[in-house]
């Protein structure tokens, strides 16, 4: 009789279902629930409070009429690509170099991680100062006699988004480092030995053997960074307030502004839903493909 019930797989147990119950409840209530709720609100004219009228897709129409929203989407695209790539590369390099049995590893690890520990309200301000052409690096360089030195991206509408990349990579690279370091340290010693026998240069071992083995850690890091991209807010507020003009506006700031200061819950919800759908459109195919590949391996 057991064979009737358990056909789905050998490794199942009641405990496993029970263990996932909190997750199931959370997902259904908190995540799925809010998603549905947000979707619903986005079809109302809600302002400070959720309303229960129905205005169809009016909020969406308004949203895509909004210049600032379009700029935000555009910015997040550029920003996301650069930020994720740079953070992964920087984090990986830091992890690799810190893995070389260096002295003062603990100090270095802390140095690379500390930005992650500090509120961006303050560190963002420091970045704003440092990048400010009148106060910061450009001023210093010019004082030192490099009168032609220019580094005024933060006040340049075309470049400002890159300064956000710099500051946020500075903040996130340490976390990626820690994540990859933990993966790196988990690799069986024998693999290293085999590579040494094969005469593979260390850097090559990292690139060709270790990096692929870090696949899961990398994908964790990737998702983490992706989430950071979508939720990017603090850094922009602290560094540029979305300016100059709307040149460094991002979707999360748009949503927050309309949610609180501008008291337009309906529009903010519509923006959240659009953002979520965009993310899904990017992530879902990858997730699906990976899952299928995984299932094929197991089957």
């Amino acid at each position, binding site marked *: 009789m057991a064979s009737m019930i358990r056909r789905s*797989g050998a*490794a*199942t147990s009641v*405990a496993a279902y029970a*263990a*996932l119950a*909190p997750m199931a409840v*959370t*997902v259904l209530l*908190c*995540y*799925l629930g*809010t998603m549905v709720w*947000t979707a619903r609100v986005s079809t109302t004219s809600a302002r400070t409070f959720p309303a229960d009228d129905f205005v169809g897709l009016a909020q969406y129409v308004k949203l895509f009429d909004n210049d600032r929203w379009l700029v935000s989407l555009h910015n997040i695209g550029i920003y996301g690509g650069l930020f994720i790539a740079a953070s992964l590369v920087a984090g990986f*390099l830091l992890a690799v170099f810190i893995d*070389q049995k*260096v002295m003062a*590893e603990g100090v*270095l690890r*802390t*140095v*690379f991680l500390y*930005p*992650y*520990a*500090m*509120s961006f*309200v*303050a560190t963002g*301000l*420091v970045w704003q100062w*440092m990048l400010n052409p*009148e106060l910061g690096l450009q*001023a210093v360089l010019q004082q030192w006699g490099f009168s032609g030195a220019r580094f005024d991206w933060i006040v340049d509408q075309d470049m400002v988004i890159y300064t956000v990349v710099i500051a946020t990579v*500075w903040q996130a690279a340490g976390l990626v480092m*820690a994540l990859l*370091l933990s*993966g790196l*340290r*988990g690799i069986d*010693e024998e693999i*290293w030995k085999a590579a040494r026998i094969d005469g593979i240069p260390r850097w090559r071992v990292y690139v060709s053997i270790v990096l692929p*083995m870090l696949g*899961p850690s990398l994908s*964790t890091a990737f*998702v*983490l960074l*992706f*989430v950071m991209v979508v*939720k990017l807010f603090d850094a922009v507020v602290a560094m540029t307030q979305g300016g100059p003009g709307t040149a460094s506006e991002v979707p999360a700031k748009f*949503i927050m502004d309309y*949610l609180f200061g501008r008291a337009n*819950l309906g529009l903010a919800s519509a923006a*959240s839903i659009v*953002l*979520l759908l965009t993310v*899904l459109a990017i992530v*879902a195919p990858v*997730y699906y493909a990976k*899952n299928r590949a995984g299932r094929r391996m197991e089957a």
Partner: protein
Amino acid sequence: MRGAGGAPGEAALAQSGKQPPSPARPPRSGWARAFTPARLGVYGFLMMAALFFLLPLYVMVATSVKPMEEIRLGALFALPVAPTFEPWRAAWQSACTGLECSGIQGGFWNSVRIVVPSAVLSILVGAVNGYALSFWRIRGASVLFGVLMAGAFIPAQVMLYPMVRMLAAADLFGTLPGVVLVHTVFGMPVMTLLFRNYYAALPQELFKAARIDGGGFWRIFFELMLPMSVPVVVVALIMQVTGIWNDFLLGLVFAGTENLPMTVQLNNIINTTTGERLYNVNMAATILTSLVPLTLYFVSGRWFVRGIASGAVKG
């Protein structure tokens, strides 16, 4: 122990003076090692990186020990002319955060009370989820997980309103358990992902062996998987302790007036709309607040264990 210094051996060599005559590479001990070109390259890179990372910290620290007059001059990188630790003292115990002017110290224990259970619970839940997802085939689990991950992309602020209502309905709004629960909920996607992917990289055979040994879900988790998760638990700790310690929004909304975390004070100090700003105090307060996660980063090294699954399987 890849290339491990082999300290005892080298010490013996050095003492007995039995250096091999024409070694292709001399015994690799601390200092001798530090001066090969490759080592210099490594240290060079790390120094450059450290400089880049430390520059903002330098500005913060320098600012924090300057009097406001100096700061107004805008010489950002200048060393303080008249260094003062008054801002630090003020940040800790006398900066105004509203009616009260007693610095950020007020919320310290509240923060501890929030961060400890929240971090522990969220990591535990994440680990259990990750473990269940990667080793146990549970119908519908991957769909759940997919929704959960999608949830990670919704701004927390959007979820506030419904969450407030739910917690209020459960009579948990404005209580310590309430805020712990909220942190667990918001930490769940990333924690689950972290552990799921970590477990995916472990040899499946270990799990199979434990199944044969009769291990049930929990036994395998606690006795086998958790000990093997040390490095990732450390990463999870780093993430959660930092995140929850620095969290301002959820603490403010859900913790209730009795339990407001330290970051609410911090925010009150550094984030004013129309009040005057004491940058030196702000910087000092920021650095002070981050000391707890920083300490964790510093001591976490010994748990970044090397080769934790070494010797487990042949292959």
